[in-house]
């Protein structure tokens, strides 16, 4: 099931917090950053999609 925007944002913030705490296992850092980057792109895509949808709906 696709995650909601807020769920994605919360997860990214959690990853950032865990990275900032300095207690993250090194092996996990890359995976965590990759996961966060995917979530970030997902959120940005959603936002751009929303803008496009709004413009399309109002122009239509």
């Amino acid at each position, binding site marked *: 099931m696709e995650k909601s925007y807020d769920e994605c*944002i919360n997860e990214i913030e959690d*990853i*950032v917090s865990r990275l900032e705490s300095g207690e993250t296992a090194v092996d996990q850092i890359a995976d965590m950053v990759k996961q*966060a980057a995917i979530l970030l792109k997902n959120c940005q895509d959603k936002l751009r999609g929303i803008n496009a949808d709004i413009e399309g709906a109002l122009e239509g």
Partner: protein
Amino acid sequence: MIDNYQPQYTLLDFNRIIRDTLETYMDPDYWVVAEIGELKVNQRGHCYISLVEKSNEKILAQARATIWANNYTTISRWFEEATGERLRQGIKILSRIRVNFHEVYGLSLNIISIDPSFTLGERAVKRQETINMLVSEGLMDLNKQLVMASVPFRLAVISSPTAAGYEDFCHQLDNNAYQYHFNITLFKALLQGDGAITSITKALSQIEEEKDRYDVVVIIRGGGSQLDLDCFDSRELTRVVACCPLPVLAGIGHERDETVTDMVAFKSLKTPTAVAEFLISCLLSYEQRLVNAMDNIRRMIQNITQLQEQRLSNKAAKLSHLARSVTDRALHHTDKLKQQLSFAAQKATEKAHNNLIILEKRIEQNDPEKILKRGYSLTAFDNKPLLNARQLKAGDQITTYLSQGVITSKIETTDQSKTYRNGKKL
């Protein structure tokens, strides 16, 4: 018994006495007012008239009179030209009468002229009486007060089917430029002469019985003769027209002053064609009103939609702006998160990297090869690093690893009391 002294006359003598007496004592002629009770013209053109004087329909006096053919043509034409109607039964005339007495043919009254101005005056009096009656009974404007249908197309027409006016009327309606369709129902009637009043009244009565089927009543006469319009001044007919429950359009078609029927009708027009044009104009006017109304509705709808479109456009702009600001904030947040993530990831990897460097140094520091190069050696016993002399006894063989080469030694003695601390032998 016959009185012997009473003179006796022959009939001829007697008639001569009458003639002489009349000629002696009577004027050559007299102006006499009387109503034409009956009028006949024979084949030779002589006109025989029965003159009467009535009071409340009771005949008070009556006399036969003649207009000889040689006079009749002139008198009747002059009368018609002056009054607009011909000599006929029922009209009052002022005639100049010469009294003749002939020994063979007896008494005769010869009309030698007729004064048309008297008849005109009479008619005017009658007409005024009708008007007075209608005014006093409140009927004068009754028909005018009706409201005519906006689209008067169901027409009850009172006319003679053979009248030129009726033909003109139908032609005008059938060929109107706007292709309006009229439903014409003809009620045949006489529109002149003695039977006109009864005939028209009967037709109006028939129409009244089915009034819901019609929008207006049209009375058409028109075409040809301008005579015999008196019926349209009659009390009976004008009262029925005034009381008609439908608007009456009069197209009686005449040149003289309007009849009382014209006055009481909803609308009076000069000719049947003019009535048709009026009806067409009513439909045209209605259509024009409809077109105007549609234009107004269209304009109003345009105004409303333009206003609403403007409002919606404003709302859309506002919505777009709001949505944009929300998503912009969110994008800003994600950008910030990205930076944080990058920073955190960098920090996390830097820390790991630093640890790695420290570890690397530690590993470097503990690398046996490097330690050996610094002059240290590694002694192993039984393939394990030897840390304590107590592990050995005399005769045990140990292996010493140097930076370059390996030494194998045999233990002679061990001393556990001596140890190496901080580069000093203790």
